[in-house]
Each structure stands twice: as C-alpha cells, then as structure tokens.
C-alpha cells in the first residue's frame, strides 16, 4: 500500500500532461475536432467507471459472494466520477459558447451544406420532430443529472462499504442492497440518455433502439478488463497473494466471455435489423462507415468495422473459450488490454465518422487529428488512474468485515486443475 502515493503522483502528472497536450491541439486542429477526441476519451474512461458502477450494484443486488474480494477495487474506481464530471465541463461550455461545433443540432442556423446536406438544422423536419430531446437545455440538464446520479450512487456505495470495514455492521450491506435496487434502473436510464445525447445525436437523423445497451455492454467489458488488470497487478505485487485463487480468475473470465457474446448479440442485432429493413433513414449510418459516396469506393472505416467484428468478437470469443487461459495470469492481462483497446476503437468508430466533408463523407480514420484522441485518452486516463490510486490506500485491500468475505476467500466453484 505504501507504493500508492508516488504512483498516484505519476499518474496525475501524466494526466495533466495529456490534457495540456490536448489543449495544445486546440491551436493546431481547432476546437471542433479536438472536442471529438475529448468526447472519445470521456466516453471511454466514463464507460469504464460506469461499468464498474454496474458491477458493484449487480454484486449487491444478487448478494454475490465470490466477487467480494475484488469489489473493493471497483469501488476505488468509482472515485473517478467527480473528476470525469469536471473534465466534461468544456463540452458543456461548448453548448453556450460554440453551439453546433460538436453537436450540429445545438445551432438551428447550422448550414447542413457543409456536411453534404441542404438547408439549415432549423429547417430540418427530422430535427424538429426530435427537438423535444435534442435541445441545449435538455442536453445540459440530462448531463448534469446523469453525472450527479452517478457521483451520488458511487458515494453511497463507497461510504457504506468503507464504513463496514470499521464496525462490521450488517446494516451497511443492506443499505448497499437498497442503493443497488434503485440505483440500477437510475443508472440504466441515465447511461442510455447520456450516450444517446453525447454520441448517437452526433448524427441526429439516425435512430437505433440498441444504442444504450450497446454502450452498456462495452462499458462492462472494459470494466471487467480493468478488473483483471488490477487483479493481476495486485497479485504480482503481492497484495492479493493468499486472497485470490484460480476460481476468482475463472469467474471473472467467464463474465468477460459472457459480455463478449452479449456485446456481439447487441451489435449484430443493431446491424442486422438495419440491413434487413434496408431503409435509407437508417442505412446511411453504416454506409457512411463503409464507403465514400463521392467515389463509391470503400473508405478506411470499413476496415475499422471489420476489425471490430473480428477483434471485438471473434478473437476474444475464441481466446476466452479456453479454461486454462482464463486462469493464466500472464495471458489474461493481454486479453484484457486488447478488449479495452477495442472498446476505445468502437467508440472512435461511433464518434468520428460524424465529422464529414462537403460531400457528406466521413473524414478518414487515419488522420493527424487523431493524435488528440491519443493525448485525450492518456490525459483523462491519468486523472482516472490517479483518482483510483488516491482512493486505494485509504481503505483495507478487501472488505474484511463483509458478511460474505469468508465465502469469497475460500471460493470454490468446480474442479480447478
């Protein structure tokens, strides 16, 4: 635990450096492009935090036992929400100071000819029909409310869990169960609204009922991956020796496998329903990510999409089928890193093609402006890791007085070779 402080300082420096570099990008690429990179970074790290929030609440609502020893690490991860809210402020400010720069529909006078359309947003019937939700007030209110709810739920879950370390009172377990019971629907609704407003509305013509579930699946996959990385890190460092056994690794590996299939199910359903109905109001979203209308040739995004199909489903699916690999403390961190990296790519795939040229075609995937995506992800990531490491030494490694801690420490599920 002593190693927590200097590492936290390093993370903070890396985070601030990343943010400073991204700010420098404002001068090079302009606010409208850097804002997209910033949005990618926030939905990536915010997604990890949301996934952890869901995992903690799912743990409580099912009265789970095996995950008690790793729940504490997710609780530390929840410390990042208030910083993520702070880091989101520039995007909220853009609503007032540069409407239309990030989300076109914020500015009714936005000339759609710039992106291959005609008329202005204000004249667009497809916007008018959706204006009840797609307006600056709703955006700001929902964003503030969402972060508020996530911060509040996190604070409740953390406080009760940490308090139990001291007195061992069962009331904290019951309180967290109640928090999870009302927190899960609250978090589900706010997650859906947030991702619809932040990302889906970048192309506000489009609609998909799968969108919230798609983001949820990605969030939990990334959070589980982060969980495996933390478990292996603390195992190698020695903290988790004698705490974790093969069954804990097997179970979290099984969850990663289940959510791999879940992500594929949701993402395929979204694609398949649009492919099958084949109506232009929906297909344009995928066409944009497959070919340039100006030339008729495939664009770079097609290959990103293929990479998602194989890299985000087939590769992890077959890797995680193996029982031995799920127990491997040398292989699983790579699988986890891969899944987290592809989650990032998935977000880039959903966000960036909304930046279009005059023909209405997506700007290419490989463009210099993507440098700011890298710096933003490092910047926001540094802050999130710092928040985790800062929270880490403030409590016990595991919830030592949780009523199910004994069950968790002796967790045994099946024949572990």
């Amino acid at each position, binding site marked *: 635990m002593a190693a927590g402080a200097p590492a936290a300082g390093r993370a903070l420096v890396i985070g601030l450096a990343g943010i400073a570099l991204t700010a420098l990008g404002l001068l090079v690429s302009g606010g409208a492009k850097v804002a997209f990179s910033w949005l990618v970074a926030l939905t990536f790290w915010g997604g990890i935090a949301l996934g952890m929030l869901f995992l903690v609440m799912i743990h409580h609502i099912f009265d789970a036992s095996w995950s008690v020893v790793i729940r504490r690490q997710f609780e530390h991860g929840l410390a990042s929400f208030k910083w993520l809210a702070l880091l989101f402020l520039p995007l909220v400010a853009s609503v007032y100071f540069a409407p239309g720069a990030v989300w076109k529909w914020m500015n009714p006078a936005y000339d759609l000819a710039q992106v291959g359309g005609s008329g202005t947003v204000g004249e667009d019937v497809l916007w008018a029909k959706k204006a009840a939700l797609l307006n600056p007030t709703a955006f700001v209110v929902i964003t503030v409310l969402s972060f508020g709810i996530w911060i509040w739920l996190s604070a409740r879950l953390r406080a009760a869990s940490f308090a139990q370390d001291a007195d061992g009172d069962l009331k904290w377990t019951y309180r967290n169960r109640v928090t999870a019971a009302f927190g899960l629907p609250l978090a589900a609704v706010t997650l859906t609204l947030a991702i619809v407003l932040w990302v889906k509305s970048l192309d506000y013509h489009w609609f998909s009922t799968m969108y919230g579930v798609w983001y949820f699946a990605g969030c939990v996959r990334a959070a589980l991956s982060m969980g495996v990385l933390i478990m292996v890190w603390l195992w190698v460092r020695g903290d988790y020796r004698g705490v974790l056994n093969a069954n804990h690794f097997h179970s979290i590996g099984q969850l990663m496998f289940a959510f791999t299939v879940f992500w594929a199910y949701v993402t395929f359903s979204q694609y*398949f329903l649009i492919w099958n109905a084949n109506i232009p109001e929906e297909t344009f979203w995928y066409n944009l990510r497959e070919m340039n209308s100006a030339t008729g040739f495939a664009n770079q995004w097609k290959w990103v999409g293929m990479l998602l199909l194989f890299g985000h489903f087939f590769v992890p699916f077959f890797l995680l089928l193996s029982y031995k690999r799920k127990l491997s403390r040398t292989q699983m961190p790579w699988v986890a890193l891969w899944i987290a990296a592809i989650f990032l790519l998935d977000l880039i795939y959903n966000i960036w093609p909304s930046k279009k040229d005059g023909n209405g075609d997506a700007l290419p995937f490989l463009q210099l402006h993507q440098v700011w995506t890298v710096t933003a992800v490092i910047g926001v990531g540094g802050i999130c890791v710092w928040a985790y490491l800062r929270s880490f030494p403030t409590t016990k490694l595991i919830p030592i007085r949780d009523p199910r801690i004994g069950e968790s420490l002796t967790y045994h599920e099946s024949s572990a070779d």
Partner: protein
Amino acid sequence: MAAQPYGLVAVFDTAPAVYHAAETVRDAGYKCWDCITPFPIHGLDRAMGLRRSKVPRISLVGGVLGFTTGMSMIWFTSAYDYPLLVGGKPYFSPMFAFPVSYELTILFTAFATIGGMFLLNRLPMHYHPVLKSDHIVRGLDDKFLVVIEARDPKFNLAATRALLEKAGGREITELEA
C-alpha cells in the same frame, strides 16, 4: 458367490477423514475408485486426483455442428433447393442465416453437454454393485465411503485392505460383484 469381489468399501466418519483417505489412495496410484459422500466436499476432486471433465470438448463439437447446420440449412432451403427472393435480398447471406445458426449453436451445445455428461458417466445406470452394500444408506446420509474396484490394476485384496486401514477406514468389507 464369485471368487473375485467387485471391490472393497471402507467407511469414514468425517469429511476431513475421507479427504485425507482420498489423498492416500490417489498417491498409492489407484485409478478405478470413487468416494461416496452425502454432500459435495470442496476440493475432494483434487484430493482424488481427478482431471477436469471432458464434457466441454463434446460441447464445443455440438456448438460447431449447430452453427454449420444452421448455415447450411438456410443455404440449402433458400438458395439451392428452392431459390426464393425475399425482400430483394441475396438468395443466401450469412446475415439472415445468423440468428438461426446462433440458436442452433446454443441448442446443439446444450444437447451435446447433457448427452456428453450422460455418456461419460455411463448414465442411465439402473444397477451398481455398491447399492447392495449395507453401508450405502449411511453413505448417502452421514458417513463417507471410499470404494476401490477390483478391476483396478493395482488392486490386491490384502494390500488394498491394508491401505484402507492405514488411511483410517473402518468396517472394510468386500462388495459382491
């Protein structure tokens, strides 16, 4: 009565006793033997030196069969046997064959898992020599049994009996085949 018995059965009073007895029998190199306990004992499989179940491999075969059945069935019915245009779509595309293939993957995996489990456990088994033993009733209630079968290459009536005695087994009796 046949000269060669089915095997030897020994009774143990506590879970730790049978656990350590299992370790002793495992280390003595026996292969055809089993423990009978009233409830699952965590870690007993390891103490017995049991390998992981082979059922997952059978499940995988079922899954692959299910997926290919789905894909080829859709191809056969809508592109080969009776080509039919639906909604301007191609005769065959993995896109619309996928939901069916996905369902059949799950269905065949489930069948293979259940079937594989039955097969590997030689179920259904309506008779087993241990059922004749007087101890079996206690073994399903509050005692713990170790049964070593005579077909085990290491089986020797006197030596095996001595081993079970050394492991702390009581009421060691021969099982009628």
